[in-house]
């Protein structure tokens, strides 16, 4: 069943756990062929591994394992209030994958899950059926790259190969795929569609260096945006999360200028803007895990169980930032929380 570790370097994962019922799916078979040297562990249910007690999130993050599982219920969730809905009332999200290959210090997933390991659900057809069932009744805005980064994961499991044409065919469906990936090939290989929006998360390079471990540089993300817009994609730019404080305050205005000097603002669908924020429970959990993080030691306000900067500080910063952004983008096209 398992193999010795002699070929481990070829696989990006420490181990691959596979649910018994997941073996029969094509994704599983393809991965087993692709990563022949990786130890494979047969499991009954993904939660037996993912939800164990006493997992060390930080150490696991350095030795990621992949868990292949079959999702058995609830393929879609109503969008939470801490997320922007960009004007759509029927806002849903779906999670083909739990967790992310990147390691962002501010990421809420660290507080949401007991494990850093990545769960990838292999029953894509069930997801498609659930999405189609809802989209047949009413227009739906679907965040498809939620709790993860589907495009960054594309080289491991190409979910979009299976889903792209399906998304394009759904008349009532508007899909947002949020990413930090610099994968340009994606936008050349798939034709742009009216109902698919690629949302790029951007931040000043100093913020990327400080908080967004393993993510592509700002330069390479800008190149990916240029490729996407050149290929006709609807592109959203997300300045989210925005940080306030001595390490960030003087970085943003220069950054906005740099972005819109390199990306034609007319080719941008809209902009998402939001400050660093997190549910209080997640924040507390992460604060314990990341004992050496200054981010979780800053003074924040708690409003309605959400930890973030004070309203006053947010207003002052927002005004300053909007002054810079609106030189390039109409205010009506900027969505904030």
């Amino acid at each position: 069943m398992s193999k010795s570790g002699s070929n481990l370097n070829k696989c990006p994962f420490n181990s691959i756990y596979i649910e018994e019922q997941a073996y029969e799916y094509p994704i599983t078979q393809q991965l087993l062929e692709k990563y022949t040297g990786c130890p494979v562990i047969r499991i009954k249910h993904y939660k037996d591994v993912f939800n164990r007690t006493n997992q060390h999130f930080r150490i696991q993050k350095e030795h990621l394992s992949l868990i292949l599982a079959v999702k058995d219920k609830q393929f879609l969730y109503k969008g939470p209030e801490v997320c922007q809905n960009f004007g759509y009332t029927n806002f849903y999200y779906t999670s083909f994958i739990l967790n992310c290959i990147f390691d962002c210090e501010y990421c809420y997933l660290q507080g949401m899950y007991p494990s850093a390991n990545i769960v990838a659900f292999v029953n894509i057809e069930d997801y498609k059926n659930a999405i189609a069932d809802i989209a047949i009744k009413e227009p739906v805005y679907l965040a498809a790259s939620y709790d993860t980064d589907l495009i960054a994961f594309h080289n491991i499991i190409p979910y979009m190969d299976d889903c792209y044409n399906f998304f394009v065919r759904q008349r009532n469906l508007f899909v947002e795929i949020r990413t930090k990936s610099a994968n340009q090939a994606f936008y050349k290989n798939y034709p742009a569609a009216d109902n698919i929006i690629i949302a790029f998360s951007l931040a000043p390079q100093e913020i990327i260096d400080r908080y967004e471990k393993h993510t592509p540089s700002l330069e390479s993300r800008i190149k990916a945006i240029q490729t996407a817009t050149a290929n006709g994609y609807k592109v959203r730019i997300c300045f989210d999360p925005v940080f306030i404080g001595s390490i960030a305050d003087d970085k943003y205005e220069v950054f906005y200028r740099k972005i819109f000097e390199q990306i034609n603002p007319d080719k941008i669908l809209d902009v998402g803007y939001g400050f660093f924020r997190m549910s209080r429970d997640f924040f507390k959990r992460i604060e314990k895990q990341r004992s050496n993080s200054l981010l979780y030691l800053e003074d924040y306000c708690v409003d309605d169980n959400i930890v973030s900067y004070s309203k006053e500080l947010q207003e002052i910063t927002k005004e300053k930032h909007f002054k810079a952004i609106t030189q390039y983008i109409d205010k009506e096209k900027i969505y904030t929380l």
Partner: protein
Amino acid sequence: MVFIVTALMIEAAPIIEYFKLKRDMNSHEYAIYRNESIALIISGVGKIKSAMATVYLYCTYKATKNDYILNIGFCGAGNARYELGTMLIINKVTDMDTGRDLYPDVFFGHFLPQEAICCFSKPVHKEDFENSTDFFCDMESSGIMEAARKLTYAHNVVILKIISDYLSPDNLDKNVLQPLIKNQLCNIKRIIEELIQHNSNMDELILDKEKQAVDMLSKNLKFTEAMKQMLMKDIKKAKLKNLEPLKILESLTVTTVNSKSEGKKIFEQIRQQLK
């Protein structure tokens, strides 16, 4: 500290000799052998005994989640894929009585083959099974795992099994078995070193001395629990900014106050100094 649990003296003896462990005369309930960094306990055969011994070690030595548990012992193999004497690192333990699966996180020992193991309550023989016997088996691993999952992190428990037989556990010769363990001692040492190295790389903020100082200050200066927490947060921040909060705290350890309001004044002064 590294805690090693073996079921039998025959498994323990070569390890005791190799690591130069000495009998801990304070322990009467179990035979424990130790040096400064390793303590080995001989649990007896079976998962209940292995779980009890693990908990006993943890309680006796006031261990924490950052300590390590190693179960080293023999196992049976239902197939001949590996030679006798091969050491396996276990990535899944199935308790054959309950059907429950338990998983250690295996982040080291990649030079060893990884396998799953079935933990039985009694010795098993090839003829006990009508169907395939493509599995490995022992009698302690699930007890270790059950105890360890309460006591330590999932990556700090290691199950190492050396194949002693192909499901024919009766009449095993001590003179044949002991060399099987001896041959793996270098690998056991390497695993322990990897384990310790691995955790030391995590670069966690250690605040033990600062905590002690804050406890003392809080007592002398009548700080409340909330004030203590605020102070610890400021200390963490100061330390991450490469300041030396301990010096500030130590300069006040002999100061005492008569009222809470006096303490509060000093509290604010300390906070200012930590900025």
